[in-house]
């Protein structure tokens, strides 16, 4: 089943094939659960988030558009959204950006070959984030991973709203400059 492409697996699951659904869950559960753990911070809630994300993918696979990204990118976006809903109901400013950063900036596993392209880009992003000034690094992970608004980042960091916006925007501009290589922008 591992030779089947991600797109084909998703299509099979969406068509109602239980074997495809089982293979889909087996293939992506570690990615989904890992992201959920990173954002919500405890394994019990992360399991609920991961299950909900996989169920949403199962129910709404027909909404996947390959022109907008890979299956894993789509699935992780769903996972992030579910996890952010959880974080938002809790106290979002209680999130510790240093813990997030320690998880996100650790060395990644190689992963299956079909995920190599995304892993390569992610690795460049990881290096780029690591080179940001610490305050920008914190701002971008709080907004980009935990889904905090600029106002919440300001509250969490005890800084003015304008400063939080500037940190987020400047960090994003720097990361974009690293990721948009000349050949990609042509």
């Amino acid at each position, binding site marked *: 089943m591992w030779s089947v492409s991600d797109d084909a697996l998703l299509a099979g699951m969406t068509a109602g094939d*239980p074997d495809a*659904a*089982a293979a889909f*869950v*087996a293939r992506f*559960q*570690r*990615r989904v*659960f*890992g992201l959920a*753990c990173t954002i919500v911070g405890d*394994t*019990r*809630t992360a399991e*609920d988030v*991961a*299950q*909900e994300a*996989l*169920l*949403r993918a*199962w129910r*709404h696979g*027909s*909404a996947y*558009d390959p022109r907008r*990204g890979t299956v*894993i*990118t789509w699935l992780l*976006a*769903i*996972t*992030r*959204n*579910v996890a952010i*809903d*959880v974080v938002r109901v809790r106290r979002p400013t209680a999130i510790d950006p240093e813990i997030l950063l320690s998880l996100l900036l*650790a060395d*990644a596993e190689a*992963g299956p070959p079909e995920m190599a392209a*995304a*892993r390569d*880009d*992610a690795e460049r*992003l990881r290096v780029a*984030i690591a080179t940001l000034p610490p305050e920008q690094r914190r701002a971008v*992970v709080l*907004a*980009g*991973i935990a*889904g*905090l608004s600029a106002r919440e980042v300001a509250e969490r960091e005890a800084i003015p709203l304008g400063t939080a*916006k500037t940190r*987020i*925007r400047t960090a*994003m*501009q720097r990361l*974009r400059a690293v*990721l*948009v290589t000349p050949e990609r922008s042509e």
Partner: protein
Amino acid sequence: MSCGEAQERAPELALGILSGDERSEVLVHLAGCARCQAVVDEYTELVDLLPHLAPDADPPPGFERRVAHAMYSGRRRATRRLVAILAATAAAATITSVTILRVIDADRDDEPAASAPRLRTATMVGSSGQPVGRVTVSKGAPAALVVSVDYAVPDGSYALQLHTPNAGGSHRVGTITIVGGRGEWNGSATIPSGSRSTLALVSISGDTVCQAEILI
């Protein structure tokens, strides 16, 4: 809104943390500016990459079995805290009609003057009256329309149905896809000036899940 202003806000738009009014203004600008749209697309790619940084982790034993059970038993596991946390979202799945309309129009004038704002924003509401998104309309023929849904609408594809009582009734202007509770649609439609129109999200089974009343 200028290109500079739109691109300044592009990172927050891509991150999904731009506030409602600013977000609508940027989206209207993007509907007519391919260059700024390309910038936003690059930021969106960057945001999509961020979750890839998270380390993999093994879920607890039995996770696959529990997910499969939830898929095919027709009964979702009563998951501890998530039930309460996501209750508001789940409640929206039962929305079948809309009884309450509310229009928020911060720029509203009793007598629109020549200098009246070109953008009008209406809140999309569900049956219990909760805001689930917004519609921004620019003046013009056709009018630029931006629909944003960010809360409490179940994932799936919905027809965007525009109802204009004084101008030929109801017609479909597009389709919006909601993924992970969020969705956006940019397009245009002919809306007679001074008319009171309704834009609704209609599910594949014909149920209206939310709608907004728009005045231009």
